[in-house]
């Protein structure tokens, strides 16, 4: 059995998330049977309007602290041995690019799914990040949750 401390990693990234942040495989451990992941992908439309790009604004010092707190909260709530890797992108993102990646490794799948779902819901509630959508018709708007 792997007695090492659980992996807990979180980051705010400039730009879209690179492929290595999107890959759950880095969390595979000999003592963990399940990895649940979530990727948020920029969509090319919103309420029928074409979206050319997003700009994510971020209150970075708070966002970094909060991500760490959410990771700790998930471990406390679901399983102290969870392995967790969370990242959120900022700045300019194009449709198809990844804005958020959450990977959770756990001994069993129920905890992995629950913690992964919990993390994305908490990120959407509290992470101080704001999405500025830019439309094909030239307009733009600040989004209010999703």
């Amino acid at each position, binding site marked *: 059995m792997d007695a090492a401390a659980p992996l807990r990693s979180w980051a705010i990234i400039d730009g879209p998330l690179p492929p290595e942040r999107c890959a759950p495989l880095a969390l595979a451990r000999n003592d963990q049977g399940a990895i649940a992941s979530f990727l*948020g992908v920029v969509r090319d439309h919103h309420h029928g309007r074409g979206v050319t790009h997003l700009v*994510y*604004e*971020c*209150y970075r*010092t*708070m966002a970094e*602290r*909060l991500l760490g707190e959410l990771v700790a909260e998930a471990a406390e709530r679901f399983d102290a041995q969870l392995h967790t890797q969370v990242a*959120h992108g900022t700045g300019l993102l194009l449709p198809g690019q990844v*804005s*958020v990646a959450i990977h959770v490794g756990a001994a069993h799948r129920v905890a992995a799914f629950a913690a992964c779902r919990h993390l*994305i819901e908490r*990120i*959407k*509630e*509290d*992470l*101080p*990040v*704001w*999405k*500025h959508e830019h439309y094909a018709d030239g307009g733009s708007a*600040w*989004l*209010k*949750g*999703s």
Partner: protein
Amino acid sequence: MPIATVLYFAQVRDRLGCEQERLELPATTTVAEILATLGARYPQCAAAFATCRIAVDCRFAAGAVALDDESEIAVIPPVSGG
């Protein structure tokens, strides 16, 4: 009274045309009082402030708030990450 730093983001920052300012605020106050003070100072944003949360030193605040000259107050409009 302490002079705290106040940060504005997203639609509020756009409407104020201001990212950050130094503002004199009571040493002991509340989230509601801070938002009311800002609403009186910037009437064009009063409605927006009513939808905002306040973070002090990178933590969401609720109720009573203690401030000093080092305090960083962030006005947090509805977030839209993920």
